[in-house]
């Protein structure tokens, strides 16, 4: 329910100016070229003709439901899987024949995959020892990494003697110590409890900015993706559905799937009744609705109007005519009080149930709107988005 605000988090200062993907002169660090990955004889490929660019110093998120191929896409970059078709390039060079142990990328595994027989220090030093880094330098770099993740005092512990959060930090230090060109994070926060997950999110964000590394994260958690990433690729059954900044994905999803996956949304089916400059009129079961024109709608075609709950006003009285571009009335069937906001489920005359969320701006303990109240829902034309898919 916090999704309504999550998109605002990445509007902070320096992050907004960073947009190499918008600059035609910049070259991607990682490039997936029509990559397809099939497992065994399975008919549907796990990754299906994915073409994707990731830029240096970018924090890139692969977001999607489980089984959508996001982890496979990450493993293709790590070299743990080979593409069935297509190429994966790093800094312009084809990684095809490069085994995982020679790729300058490191991965933080979902269940961390810490070596149980080695100490924290041994785990972090493992990668450097493989590269025959001199002993003194190894020690210094391990110490530096452990300091970065605040685990110096636990250097001689074994993984099973650590808490979940500490293990997560060891895994992070182990993957970072080799200074990879790309750090791959496979659901890095999934095993942590909610509070720790939220704190760690910001730590990861700051770490990425401070180290100036390229991070690619795989997650099924939309809040995580929106908080952390410069850009998000939403994946659906092996394909990339949309690649955009968190705010774009949230406000301008390209399909119903993306709109619903990235947050709560009301979808009202209808057909285009009229197209005026900048505006579209839609005939739906709840009456005629007006929305901003996305440029894709054709007269008479089937469309879906997507409206986020927090953009809908809930009132006991009908809205003033000036605000009545989109106004429907119905009965409150559910109220979810979340403290900061309340969510209302409103059953309309047509049988459609809509969701509206409003911030609880006052400290009233008795809310004016409750179960079975007849209410009006209204939203301005620009609050809704016309989806053709």
């Amino acid at each position, binding site marked *: 329910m916090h999704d309504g605000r999550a998109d605002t988090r990445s509007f902070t200062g320096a992050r907004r100016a960073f947009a190499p993907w918008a600059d035609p002169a910049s070259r991607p660090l990682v490039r997936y070229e029509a990559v397809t990955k099939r497992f065994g004889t399975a008919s549907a490929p796990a990754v299906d003709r994915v073409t994707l660019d990731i830029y240096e110093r970018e924090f890139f998120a692969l977001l999607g439901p489980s089984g959508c191929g996001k982890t496979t896409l990450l493993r293709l970059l790590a070299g*743990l899987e080979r593409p069935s078709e297509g190429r994966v390039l790093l800094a312009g060079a084809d990684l095809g024949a490069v085994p*995982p*142990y020679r790729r300058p990328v490191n991965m933080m*595994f979902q269940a961390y*995959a810490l070596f149980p027989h080695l100490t924290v220090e041994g785990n972090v030093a*493992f990668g450097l020892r493989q590269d025959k880094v001199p002993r003194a330098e190894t020690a210094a770099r391990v110490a530096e990494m452990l300091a970065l993740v605040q685990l110096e005092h636990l250097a001689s512990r074994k993984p099973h003697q650590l808490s979940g959060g500490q293990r997560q930090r060891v895994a992070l230090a182990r993957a970072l110590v080799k200074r990879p060109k790309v750090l791959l994070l496979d659901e890095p926060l999934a095993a942590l409890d909610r509070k720790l997950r939220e704190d760690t999110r910001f730590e990861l964000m700051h770490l990425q900015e401070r180290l100036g590394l390229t991070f690619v994260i795989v997650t099924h958690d939309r809040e995580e993706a929106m908080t952390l990433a410069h850009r998000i690729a939403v994946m659906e059954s092996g394909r990339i559905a949309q690649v955009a900044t968190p705010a774009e994905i949230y406000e301008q999803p390209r399909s119903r799937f993306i709109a619903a996956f990235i947050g709560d949304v009301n979808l009202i089916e209808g057909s285009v009744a009229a197209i005026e400059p900048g505006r579209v009129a839609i005939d739906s079961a709840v009456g005629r609705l007006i929305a901003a024109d996305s440029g894709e709608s054709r007269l008479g075609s089937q469309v879906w109007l997507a409206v986020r709950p927090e953009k809908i006003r809930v009132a006991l009285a009908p809205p003033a005519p000036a605000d009545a571009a989109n106004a429907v009335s119905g009965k409150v069937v559910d109220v979810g009080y979340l403290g900061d906001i309340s969510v209302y489920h409103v059953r309309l005359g047509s049988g459609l149930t809509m969701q509206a969320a409003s911030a609880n701006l006052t400290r009233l303990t008795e809310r004016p709107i409750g179960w079975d109240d007849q209410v009006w829902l209204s939203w301005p034309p620009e609050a809704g988005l016309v989806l053709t898919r």
Partner: protein
Amino acid sequence: MSATDKRAGSPAQRLVVLVPYLWLVAFFLVPFLIVLKISLSQTTIAQPPYVPVLDPAAGLQGLREFLSGLSLENYASLLADRLYLSAYLKSLEVAALSTLILLVLGYALAYGLSRAPRRLQPLLMTLVVLPFWTSFLIRVYAWINILQRDGLLNQALGALGLVAEPAVWLSTDTAIYIGIVYSYLPFMVLPIYAALDKLDETLLEAAADLGCPPWRSFWLVTVPLSLPGVYAGVLICFIPIVGEFVIPDLLGGSETVMIGQTLWTEFFANRDWPVASAVAAVLLLLLVVPIVIYQQFQARARDAEA
């Protein structure tokens, strides 16, 4: 702490804990004490074939006479006669070398099994334990057939033109090693396979990701993490091989005498129960050492997991 608290629960729970101890007391400690007592006695032609025998009717006087009749004489004779010492050493040598061969073969087999396709593994495991379906003795007799002068082995070697004259296999140390390795291989494979089967594949991926080629991650990850299975397999094989009787007796030559055969001879041929008991008691002491080492290792592993 809480674990011990939990164990000391209701009487029923305490009884459950008691059962294995009672079992060990009744079927291990008491028989061992009897053997220990006999080892301190002297042989005689009587029934039972040793003195002194404790006569409960004689009371305290009888107990005193009984105790004064015990001596360490038999142990002294074990030291005096080089026959026993060489039999002990031969047993340890055979056990050590065959355990080493078993470890190499068993590890390779277990590793192959754990890397085989998942759906084939139950079948392959069944094949490993399949020999158990036939009596152990019959299998050893089968080896006599294979190894004898006109046996299958020499026929095969002759047919391949590898040997001109039939080689002597039976009644040699080689035959003992073949028989032992064949018989004990499943006991080495099973614990190592169990350890390798538990190995988390992503650890190998993590090692590869950190710059470790496959052959090196085998030594740095797979081997260390399979050590508990290796220790278990080595112990399970080494201890019974030291006391092995049937295989050296049937396949080995007369010049190789292992301690199990010595024990058999003392007991059945010489009817010298006291010396046989002394041989057994010393053998037990020899084997207690590796068991204690193993237990300490296990305790450490348990602490590590706690």
